[in-house]
């Protein structure tokens, strides 16, 4: 499919981006011909495919030219007469999402098992990986939409086939909810392509479409059709109801990918196809989205506090965290956008790790009810340590990755919408409340019954989650390499917004940004000594107080 298209332009010698889609697809082909009875071969093949893809994505980050704003590694193939082209490229905004996808898939394959029917399970996983990779790299609007939609199918099968409890209902709800929201987006894409068509026929190239001069009514309507699709995917406050069900019933790997990768399709879409294509409308409607984002932060946190199911709690915490990202995007300034991009990665890492941990607890205890757990710190000290670190990262403790993103977002949002930001900060406090409280109830106290005999992490499991722990610490301590790659593209996007929006004045001049980020790095570096060690060893109480 991918190789067949005729090359019209190739900016790099080796088409590295198509490789990221092709390797998982080839793995799917290999899996098809493996005997279903040999679970070990099947898992090995999937692991190999995902690790190779992950390695390529890391190589991509390595060779990514720092300080350049434009798209890199561009490869472009014409794809039939519809104006559709296989146009892939990454910039600072998408680079780390690609890397995140490349890391989360192997990790989730290592850390969880399907328990039955391994062959179709891994087949869907690899298809999901191909689709997610494609979606983050697509610079052709229609191609993006195709990837955006195709990932529903594997996720639907993963939830429905390997999920828990009410899995069929959740799978259907997930599929229909998301599909319904994106149905109108296709009409929007068609309308945009028609209305903004250059002389020589249709195109879905975003860089061309961004030059459109549509009437404000048309672009508002088209933006809304996009925004609905993305809002459901994020999910924003009033349209989030599919998420707790889908997350809770999905198998562990499904939850990890759903939270870590698929939710990012929504926020990434808002950045790439919302802000970039419709700067004027975005800047007009920004207050609405800021309000919805803040509402999501408070609502998600409040509801998470009241959950009795550990996995559901993490699911609602996602609603809150994604609210932060939306807040940062619609702050429409450098800090906000940079913070959002980095927070997308952070959320993927820390929520992914939380889901893995909850999955392990469920495997051992066959329950996720917080009330049925207790005293796990004594029986599984290693797990408690890991859980603490991940939890603190999710709370946003300085020195860990969560802080960097949230701080930047709040900084950016503060200059854009002061009072909303004040409200949003309460989300940080609530996050500490619900996570620490959950930790306290499940890990502290006396261990009784099955809790007393729970197995600790095995070396294999430890090894599996180690990459995520490493990222949590590294990105918290030294976010500079990440920010260096993100910043130029974000600056360019802001410049694009500035030049296209009448009377647009970024809330603070550019200088402040620099100071802000550099200052942040300094703060983070200072926090290095105290934060990391303390978090690893002390468990919940002491570190928690620091967090507050």
């Amino acid at each position: 499919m991918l190789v067949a298209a005729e090359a019209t332009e190739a900016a790099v010698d080796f088409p590295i981006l198509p490789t990221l889609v092709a390797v998982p697809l080839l793995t799917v082909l290999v899996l098809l011909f493996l005997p279903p009875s040999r679970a070990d071969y099947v898992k090995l093949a999937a692991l190999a495919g995902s690790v190779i893809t992950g390695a390529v994505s890391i190589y991509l980050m390595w060779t990514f030219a720092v300080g350049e704003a434009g798209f890199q590694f561009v490869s472009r193939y014409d794809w039939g007469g519809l104006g559709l082209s296989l146009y892939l490229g990454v910039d600072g905004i998408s680079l780390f999402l690609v890397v995140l996808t490349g890391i989360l898939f192997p990790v989730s394959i290592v850390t969880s098992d399907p328990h039955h029917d391994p062959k179709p399970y891994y087949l869907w996983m690899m298809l999901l990986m191909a689709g997610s990779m494609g979606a983050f790299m697509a610079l052709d609007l229609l191609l993006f939409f195709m990837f955006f939609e195709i990932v529903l199918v594997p996720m639907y099968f993963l939830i429905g086939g390997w999920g828990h409890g009410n899995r069929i209902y959740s799978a259907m709800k997930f599929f229909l909810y998301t599909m319904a929201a994106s149905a109108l987006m296709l009409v929007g894409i068609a309308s945009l392509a028609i209305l903004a068509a250059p002389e020589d026929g249709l195109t879905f190239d975003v860089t061309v479409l961004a030059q459109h001069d549509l009437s404000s009514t048309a672009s508002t309507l088209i933006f809304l059709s996009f925004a609905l699709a993305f809002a459901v995917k994020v999910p924003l406050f009033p349209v989030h109801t599919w998420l707790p069900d889908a997350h809770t019933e999905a198998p562990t790997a499904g939850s990890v990918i759903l939270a870590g990768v698929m939710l990012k399709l929504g926020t990434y879409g808002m950045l790439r196809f919302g802000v970039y294509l419709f700067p004027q409308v975005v800047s007009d409607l920004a207050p609405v989205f800021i309000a919805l984002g803040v509402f999501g932060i408070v609502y998600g946190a409040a509801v998470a506090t009241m959950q009795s199911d550990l996995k559901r709690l993490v699911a609602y915490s996602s609603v809150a965290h994604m609210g932060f990202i939306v807040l940062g995007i619609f702050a429409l300034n450098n800090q906000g956008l940079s913070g959002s991009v980095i927070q997308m990665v952070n959320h993927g890492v820390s929520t992914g790790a939380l889901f893995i941990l909850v999955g392990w607890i469920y495997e051992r205890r066959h329950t996720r009810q917080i009330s049925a757990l207790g005293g796990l710190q004594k029986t599984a000290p290693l797990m408690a340590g890991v859980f603490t670190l991940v939890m603190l990262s999710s709370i946003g403790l300085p020195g860990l990755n969560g802080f960097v993103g949230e701080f930047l977002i709040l900084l950016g949002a503060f200059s854009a919408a002061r009072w909303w930001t004040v409200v949003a900060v309460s989300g940080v406090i609530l996050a500490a409340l619900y996570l620490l409280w959950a930790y306290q109830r499940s890990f502290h106290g006396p261990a009784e019954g099955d809790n007393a005999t729970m197995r600790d992490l095995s070396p294999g499991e430890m090894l599996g989650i180690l990459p995520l722990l490493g990222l949590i610490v590294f990105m918290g301590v030294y976010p500079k390499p990440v920010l260096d790659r993100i910043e130029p593209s974000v600056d360019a996007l802001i410049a694009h917004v500035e030049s296209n929006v009448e009377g647009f004045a970024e809330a603070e001049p550019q200088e402040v940004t620099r100071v802000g980020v550099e200052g942040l790095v300094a703060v983070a570096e200072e926090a290095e000594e105290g934060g990391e060690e303390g978090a690893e060893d002390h468990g919940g109480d002491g570190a928690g107080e620091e967090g507050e």
Partner: protein
Amino acid sequence: MIGLIAQDFVAVPEVAWSLLSPLLVLAIGGIILITITSVAPPLRGRGFPAAFTIVAAAVAGWFLRDIWIDFDEPQLIVGDALAIDRFTLWVWGTIGVAVFLVAALFDGYLRRERFDGPEWYVLMLMSASGGMLMAAAQDLILTFLGLEILSIAVYVLAALHLRRTDSQEAAFKYFVLGALASALFLYGIALVYGATGSTSLNAIAATRGENALGLNPLEDSSMMLAGIALLLIGFGFKVSAAPFHMWTPDVYEGSPTPVVAFMASAVKVAGFAGLVRVFWDGLGFYHADWRPVISILAIASLVVGSFLAVAQTNVKRMLAYSSITHAGFMLVAVEALAGGSEGFAATGEGLLRSLAGAEALLFYLLAYTLMTIGSFGVLTVAGRRGDAAHSLDDYRGLSRSQPLLAGLMAVMLFAQAGVPFTSGFLAKFRVIIAAADSGSYILAGVAMLAAVVAAVLYLRVVVTMYMADSGVAVAHAITESDPDDADVDASIETDSDTGDVDADGVVGPDHEYRLPRTAVAAIFIAVVATIVLGTMPWVGQGVLRGAAADLVLLR
């Protein structure tokens, strides 16, 4: 103009014959088949008629290819009554594909149901030739002739499962309602003839403007409009567009499943071909009158088809409603086709718009044919002996007992739902972009929302096949408690295969399913074609463009 060129061609009959060869191959093939098998009864046996039909379809396809390669411009043959252009050829090809695949489905089905005899194949060949006639007709009388040849054969086909009263009932319903629709259609022809003085589409189109000159006061009369309305009803019935869809679920449910595959594909294709021929070629100047009606029919079909499908528990009925939704989508394409004719001044821009609509329609017809034959093909096999196991419960756990069948079905269903990288997505997208191009944004939005509602039904089937618990045991209990089924089974099991050449099915783990190789091959072809059309949009793009251009420009 074109008429003059065509006059020359009529004077040279053999040329006209060769242009008609695909149609003739099927029609004459049917006659030969029934003759041979009457003269030599042993050939009535199971393999021969199927092989004969498949070969006939292949030969027709080969002739079609020849005509296409030698094609230089649209021609009117047989006294201007038939138009041979690339649009006609595309539709013929689509119908030929349907005959080819459905013949393969018939084979295994007839073996399983203990029917022999070539009449199934003969009727299908006849019906297909009628459909081809409709696609080429440039005269309302010929359109009607084609419609009747097409329909009457299908009425009989619907009744051919002699042991199932459902089948008889379906045929009767289809016949009564179909006859009514034909009568209305004929009345429409009469009224149009009354208003314009001709049944030739060219002549009808040429009368436009005579009223202004005082030549033909009837041209804009209510007589003409009533005629147009009645013609639309006739076509609406054939393509099962709401509100003329009432027969569809009942007939689809009762008719033998492979016949439904033919009914849902070839009959609908021919219906749409006839519709655009008559309304674009002949009545194009009246588009301001009929285009809004098409929009209403489209919205009604989309809404009715998608919403009522959700409430069904019989898979055949579900797919019947889904075919109504698909008809709605194709009507949106027809609406877009008409949308380019603003003022009908045939400006360059307008024609380009119409071109997008025509391409969308033609691509949709082909994609839909493949998808629908593929899914009804799976139903044919999964219906098991007696062809009655079509309730949703019967599909429970199909992925365990018949992973191949379930997998093929899943691809077909997701394609129908419009999931990317299948032809279903590109077909829908072409329709949407054509609609947006002609300014019908609301229609496009309604179509997409209906597609989401329709997705519920596809997902329900997939859920039942893949995710329902304890499936197989339940399915067995149900079928085995059915007395009719048990009887048939008992009589069959003793009588083992009598010298089947191309293999009576591989017996799967569930012995009730028999997977005839020909049927599986046909389904497989449909699935592969669906994916190829969806992932390689450049395949056939030139052909499609040519066909669409001929439709739009011939007028």
